């Protein structure tokens, strides 16, 4: 008897990492940057197709799917466990990554500072991201975050002649290395306490009173060990997602890297870190965990809510006093990450699955909206910088230039209005759902804070609008590259299309995805039924 497992589930991260290693071999044949860019587009396109297949497969199955690496069954081997939430999230990341690589085909190939190793790092960043999204194993998550981080450190420092890039990379690397070391210690503590590194296995034990063995050591008791391990887990991922007060690296990084790299950060790496925090707090240590652990989870969610609110406020205030467009966008990210964590913390107030699924749906929609808006703005500013051969994104320099590049100029307006949350752009709906869900649980103060913070952030977005609505005499129309026009047009259409799609099954799909995040039973059942089927083969 043989157990058939669809190999597609485990293919994406491996393929991306393999492509990253193969790419330098081509440098013996050609040195043309255009070739390496096309290679990256082809690989990203294949990833997009594969992620679509996985998403459709998981949607059809109606329950999570499991892929054991090398045929080793979990919890001994590494397993990928894909439910509707991470399947949909990965599909979205693949789409955004594809758009960024298409844009990059114009932006980076005309930049003399770009070397083929840039694409090695870009593929590595994507490989790490997909590994983090699909994995169902705590240690494999550490490895994949390492892959993502190493690529990120090098991408930030890529402009070696720019001292600001090097400074930003140094700061990010030092703190990132400390953060990841803490997560490594967390993995040790999880293993010492649970005897397993599989997420579903730990989720099962965290809900079983028989796991509460009365040993004298910290590692002998899952409550004590989880308290320490969770503290060591949350810090690195709130650092990666730039939640206040772990956001300090962000403005330096965004303002010193290529807009393409900044778009990658804003488009998917930070969102991936938020996904990991949500996976820990809603699936592994989600509903129905032993009451002793449940108290801890509530305090952590409460702390994340406070940090989310502070992050949203700090980001909104700091936006208004920025003179650099990319720095302004960095604080806008701090603001939106704050909103996302406000939605994520809904579990602090309620354990009702009906409310949780709306709150987490709002979180997912806000992640999607923020990624679209931020990628659109970074790429538009990149187009302006490239068109006028600027090394700076100073707002005074950019003011009025949006008129000379019609598509990029329009995209800046659409992106800003979308992030403000103005209807009919879909940015409105995620903020509306966050507002609505907090009203429905009798927390009008938090709902009001969402509105207030948005109002404060208007001061900052008004500066961005001046790029298009301001005047700069003496500049004629500039012809934008096809790649730039296409990508920005698609992103602009998406902001409206998502609004319309919310009327269709897309709303139900988002709700189902949010449900799958809190549905620990299906997550554990997939794992246990696989293990049982595997063991029955030997009986």
């Amino acid at each position, binding site marked *: 008897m043989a157990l058939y497992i669809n190999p597609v589930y485990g293919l994406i991260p491996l393929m991306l990492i393999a492509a990253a290693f193969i790419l330098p071999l081509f440098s013996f044949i050609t040195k043309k940057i255009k070739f390496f860019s096309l290679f990256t587009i082809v690989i990203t396109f294949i990833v997009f197709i594969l992620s679509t297949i996985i998403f459709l497969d998981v949607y059809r199955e109606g329950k999570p799917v499991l892929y054991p690496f090398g045929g080793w069954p979990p919890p001994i081997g590494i397993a990928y466990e894909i439910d509707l939430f991470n399947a949909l999230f990965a599909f979205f990341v693949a789409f955004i990554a594809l758009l960024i690589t298409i844009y990059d085909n114009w932006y980076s190939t005309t930049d003399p500072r770009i070397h083929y190793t840039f694409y090695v790092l870009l593929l590595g960043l994507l490989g790490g991201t997909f590994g983090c999204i699909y994995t169902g194993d705590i240690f494999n998550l550490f490895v994949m975050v390492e892959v993502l981080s190493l690529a990120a450190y090098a991408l930030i420092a890529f402009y070696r002649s720019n001292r600001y890039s090097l400074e930003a990379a140094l700061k990010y690397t030092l*703190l990132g290395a400390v953060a990841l070391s803490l997560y490594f210690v967390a993995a040790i503590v999880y293993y010492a306490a649970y005897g397993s590194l599989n997420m579903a296995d730990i989720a099962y034990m965290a809900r079983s009173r028989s796991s509460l063995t009365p040993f004298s050591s910290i590692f002998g008791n899952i409550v*004590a060990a989880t*308290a320490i391990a*969770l503290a060591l887990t949350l810090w690195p991922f709130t*650092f990666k997602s730039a939640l206040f*007060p772990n956001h*300090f690296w962000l403005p330096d990084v965004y303002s010193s890297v290529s807009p393409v790299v900044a778009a990658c950060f804003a488009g998917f790496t930070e969102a991936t870190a938020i996904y990991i925090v949500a996976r820990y707090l809603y699936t592994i240590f989600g509903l129905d965990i032993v009451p002793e652990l449940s108290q801890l989870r509530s305090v952590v969610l409460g702390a994340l809510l406070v940090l989310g609110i502070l992050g949203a406020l700090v980001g909104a*205030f700091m936006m208004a006093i920025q003179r650099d467009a990319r720095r302004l966008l960095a604080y806008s990210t701090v603001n939106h990450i704050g909103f996302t964590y406000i939605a994520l913390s809904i579990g602090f107030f309620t354990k009702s699955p009906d409310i949780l699924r709306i709150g987490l749906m709002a979180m997912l929609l806000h992640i999607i909206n923020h990624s679209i808006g931020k990628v659109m703005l970074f790429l538009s500013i990149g187009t302006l910088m490239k068109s006028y051969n600027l090394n700076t994104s100073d707002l005074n320099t950019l003011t009025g230039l949006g008129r000379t590049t019609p598509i990029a100029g329009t995209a800046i307006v659409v992106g800003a209005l979308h992030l403000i949350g103005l209807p009919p752009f879909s940015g*409105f709906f995620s903020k509306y759902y966050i507002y609505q869900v907090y009203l429905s649980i009798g927390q009008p103060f938090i709902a009001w804070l969402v509105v207030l913070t948005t109002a404060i952030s208007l001061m900052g977005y008004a500066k961005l609008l001046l790029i298009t609505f301001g005047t700069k005499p003496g500049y004629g129309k500039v012809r934008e590259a096809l790649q730039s026009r296409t990508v920005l047009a698609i992103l602009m259409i998406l902001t409206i299309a998502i609004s319309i799609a919310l009327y269709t099954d897309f709303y139900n799909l988002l709700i189902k995805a949010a449900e799958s995040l809190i549905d620990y039973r299906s997550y554990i059942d997939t794992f246990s039924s696989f293990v049982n089927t595997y063991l029955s083969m030997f009986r």
Partner: protein
Amino acid sequence: MASTISLNPIDLMLISSLSTGLVLAVVLAIFRALAKKEMSSSEDAFAMYIGGEHESILTLKYPTTDALYWAVLKRVFRNVYRYLVESLHTGSVLDWVKYMSMWYGFLMILAILIVMMYMVMGW
């Protein structure tokens, strides 16, 4: 008693889009009406002072609404900005570490408290 009106997404989108469109149209109409007067002044009137303000400010009896908005905003949020810029975002990596350690410290204290609580409770 407060009442909540639930709308389906398409109604919500239509109503919110139309009302936003209406507000924008009104604002645009007001802007156009006021901008006309502004445009009637000569080209020289657009020369800027170093302070960044319009020359016509000298002829005004009262400050413009724009200037009032920023003045009030700066006054109201002066302390907020003083803290944000001079204490929080100083640019020094040591200050970063200080603030980031606060969040980490909170998590660790929470973890240690829980460990102690359950140990005291008799494991």
